[in-house]
């Protein structure tokens, strides 16, 4: 709790300092970091200093907010299934929390200090707008400290239900803290609640600005993905240093769970990102164009490479994981095809729309765009690639899941629930289709641009039609199964064929929309990404539904041999964690750098010597340094967490026992 007290004290001092700075606005706008902290010489400017500290604070905060989420879910699974293994895992995750929380608070205090020391005028302005919310933030912070330490130290000391409630409280307070801080950050990009002179009219409006909710959702999901990846890396670290098979089995399982959480949370992330991008465009076309079409457009190529790498490592981990599942070898033949598809999609996704070329090369190509590959560098191709990538990764997971299962029919099974689900879905989607048939033509055909907008209409209708056919297929499976409950082979083949058909039609539909996207204007193309995504989500949902029904009561061909994993698989987990961290740093840069020479876009101009937007190479270097510092801190957290399991020091014991 000491760190909390220190933070509280520091924040109060910072607030007083901010008022002091506020009063001095006419005199000092900026202070140079090299003069305040001469330790690093001129190499570290004020901007870099605050950039690194803010990013480190964000990394740690993301971890501290994410771990309680899945710790609570895992604890709940343990509570519901009465399996102690889950409870132990949840506790193991929670052990990482207490030191991380102190570090987060420390970096938060450093960040606050640096903001008011290095940017007194801007810091003063932020506190003049958000002053009231600071106190709520502090209050919640104390609340979080209370919940967190009671949750951690109270493990096994309360009744399970009370303990679960404590975990729930911890999550609610943590999320509320993030939402408030997000208000400050997003205000800088899309200010609201102020008049033309920048004076605050409504603090609530200033917090709930245009990009607030998209960032909230984006960060919430991304935190889970990031936290899962770091927790998986902890599992990997313990696995590699494990002495016994039992330890290896346990930490292999821990790594698997962490990675599973990371990947599941990662899949919807691009869509949350699209929403954020859409809101940025809606707030200011100028900002939107700077983001996607201006100096930052190449940043998204770097992002594509990082995400491609994430998909590759996620798939590789699953394929390696099949090695510990007896019976999974029958699927090994599929891996090469999956790899080919992933590589093609990766290549498409990382293709830039224009290419760096010498004047001779440019004249040969007839411009900076390659005559063929330029078609792969646009949104239509990239959206298609990422949707197929998601489906491919999902297939890898499906094969992994089926590894040791052999479907058998269980004549006693009741199908009323699945039938009900399928029936409800059918009715729901029929109504949806009816709505589109009725509502869309009105705006699709009445405006002047009939052809492109009708494309949107057709693509929506196409999705709904696809979904209906897919549901129809799923319902055929459900009814076929119940009628044919004595057989074992017929419906398994039938179910597999249906799943295959749904996959093929989804991919065909995704590719069709991708190609259609070339024929319509940008606005329609962006809108058309929605039906594309819907078809992918529906596919995953229905195929999972069929799979669960098909493998309910399945014959297990052998238990998973946890711990029988090659060491390289654990490096996959590290790779995923490092990639996530680097990606987060990069996207943090673009979110903030997007404002270019503004502290608060359109309200307070950055007039410091650092007002320019640096090169992407420079930004990459800063991100890399930050990532390395973060992992040194993570190593410290891991080491501290592992101390708790060690025996107490005993001076009288012989040396070999002491060690």
């Amino acid at each position, binding site marked *: 709790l000491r760190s909390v007290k220190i933070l509280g004290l520091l924040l109060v001092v910072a607030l007083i300092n901010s008022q002091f700075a*506020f009063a001095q*606005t*006419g005199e000092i706008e900026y202070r140079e970091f090299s003069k305040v902290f001469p330790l690093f010489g001129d190499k570290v400017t004020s901007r870099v200093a605050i950039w690194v500290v803010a990013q480190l604070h964000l990394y740690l905060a993301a971890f501290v907010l994410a771990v309680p989420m899945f710790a609570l879910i895992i604890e709940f699974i343990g509570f519901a299934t009465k399996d102690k293994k889950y409870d132990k895992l949840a506790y193991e995750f929670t052990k990482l929390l207490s030191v991380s929380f102190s570090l987060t608070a420390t970096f938060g205090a450093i960040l606050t200090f640096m903001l008011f020391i290095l940017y007194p*005028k801007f810091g003063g*302005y932020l506190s*003049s707008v958000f002053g009231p919310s600071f106190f709520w933030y502090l209050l919640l912070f104390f609340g979080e400290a209370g919940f967190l330490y009671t949750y951690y130290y109270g493990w096994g000391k309360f009744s399970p239900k009370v303990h679960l409630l404590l975990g729930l409280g911890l999550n609610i307070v943590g999320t509320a803290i993030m939402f408030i801080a997000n208000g400050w950050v997003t205000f800088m990009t899309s200010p609201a609640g102020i008049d*033309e*002179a*920048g*004076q*605050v009219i*409504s603090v609530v409006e200033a917090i709930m600005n245009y990009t607030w909710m998209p960032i909230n959702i984006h960060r919430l999901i991304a935190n889970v993905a990031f936290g899962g990846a770091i927790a998986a890396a902890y599992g990997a*670290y313990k696995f*590699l*240093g494990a002495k016994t098979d039992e330890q290896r089995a346990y930490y292999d399982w821990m790594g698997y769970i962490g990675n599973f959480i990371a990947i599941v949370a990662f899949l919807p992330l691009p869509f949350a990102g699209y929403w954020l991008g859409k809101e940025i465009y809606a707030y200011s*076309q*100028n900002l939107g*164009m*700077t983001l996607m*079409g*201006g*100096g930052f457009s*190449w940043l998204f*190529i*770097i992002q594509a*490479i990082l995400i491609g790498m994430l998909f590759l490592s996620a798939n590789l981990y699953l394929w390696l994981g099949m090695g510990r599942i007896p019976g999974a070898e029958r699927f090994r033949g599929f891996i090469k095809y999956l790899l080919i598809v992933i590589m093609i999609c990766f290549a498409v996704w990382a293709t*830039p729309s224009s290419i*760096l070329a010498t004047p001779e090369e440019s004249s040969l190509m007839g411009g900076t765009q390659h005559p063929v590959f330029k078609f792969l560098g646009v949104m239509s191709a990239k959206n298609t690639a990422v949707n197929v990538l998601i489906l491919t990764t999902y297939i890898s997971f499906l094969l992994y899941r089926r590894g040791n299962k052999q479907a058998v029919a269980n004549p006693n099974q009741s199908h009323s629930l699945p039938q009900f689900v399928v029936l409800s879905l059918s009715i729901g989607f029929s109504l949806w289709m009816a709505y589109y048939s009725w509502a869309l033509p009105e705006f699709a055909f009445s405006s*002047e*641009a009939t052809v*492109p907008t009708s494309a949107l209409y057709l693509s929506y209708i196409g999705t709904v039609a696809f979904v209906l056919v897919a549901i129809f297929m799923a319902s055929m499976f459900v009814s076929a199964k119940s009628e044919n409950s004595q057989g074992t082979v017929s419906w398994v083949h039938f179910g597999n064929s249906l799943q295959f058909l749904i996959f093929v039609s989804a991919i065909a539909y995704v590719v069709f929309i991708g190609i259609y996207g070339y024929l319509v*204007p940008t*606005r329609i193309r962006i809108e058309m990404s929605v039906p594309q995504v819907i078809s992918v989500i529906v596919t995953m949902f229905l195929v999972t539904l069929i799979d669960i029904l098909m493998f309910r009561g399945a014959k297990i061909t052998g238990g998973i041999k946890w711990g029988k994993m090659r060491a390289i698989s654990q490096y996959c987990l*590290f*790779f995923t964690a*490092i*990639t996530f961290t*680097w990606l987060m740093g*990069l996207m943090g840069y673009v979110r903030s750098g997007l404002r*270019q*020479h503004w502290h608060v*876009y*359109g*309200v*307070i*101009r950055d007039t410091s010597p650092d*007002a*320019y*937007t640096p*090169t*992407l*190479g420079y*930004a*990459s*270097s800063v*991100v*890399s340094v930050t990532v*390395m510092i973060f*992992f040194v801190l993570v*190593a410290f957290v891991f080491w501290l967490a592992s101390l708790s399991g060690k025996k107490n020091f005993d001076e009288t014991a012989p040396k070999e026992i002491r060690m």
Partner: protein
Amino acid sequence: VKKLSAIVLMLLLATFVSWGLRTLLPNNLELFITILIYVLFAVPVWGYFPESTRVPLIILVFTAQVTLFYNYVGQLVPQSVIYPPEDVKIGADMTTEQMVEAGRKLYEGKGTCLNCHGTGARFPDLVDIGQLARTRISGYTDVEYFSESLYEPDKFIVEPFAPGMPPVHKPPIGLTHEEILTVIAYLQSLGGTPTVTMKTELKYHDEPISAPVVAVASEDEEDQTGEQLVAAYGCLGCHSFDSPDRMLGPSLYDIGSRMNKAEIYESLMEPDEVIAEGYPPGVMGATLTAMGFYDKVTTKQLKTMVDYLMSLKGDNGT
């Protein structure tokens, strides 16, 4: 001691080799290859490292190499620095050529026009706009068309594009009237002949420019006069200060002879305590709250305003 010496020796060797090779290594990959050299030299003495340090060491090297790989990717893409727009000097006696040149600089810099125009897909390409501007809206001259497009961009949208351009005299662009004249000169020059001069009057010239600069109550604002403050806080919207005419609220032109300082202070801070006859209660309080008056006003400003109001004695006083 032997094991430690061997490790130190190999470390020194690795340092020596990487130092010797440093000029040969490509800049972006220098660190990446240096780490590889250390790894290479660590292999023969790997068995000498204490067992508990081996796994963390491998993980550390792995983390550094993956990070450096992504850093390398970051160096491969085009590198450009974007500087804040430079100020363009505008003079009242600029020639047309000078205006076009200044307008071009603003178009590419502070005006941020190039962000959206010229890329083709999302907003109109302005390559022949000097010619097209005369025909876009019937009855409009090209200057009228340009000024409307810049000051009120949503008023007329070119098909099939969607609205989205901000008024250029407001933040975040915040061009001055003079700067806008030079931008019009530049736009006219794109496929046409510039006719606009620095003396051209646009119908928008009475509109206030909101300069996108700071925002905090500065020393200057603290030093504002009472007259400036009642204007800034919108009092003029409901009260008359120079005649006994009734507006939404009672006239204040003789308030100094009707009230004392304490009453004026009370009327400002708690307007519903005493209501002038014939006026609805609650209006002033709600208006001032909505405008954020009570959050913004400082003690010094309040004193200045009260002093100013006290000085208003009506026809008898002045």
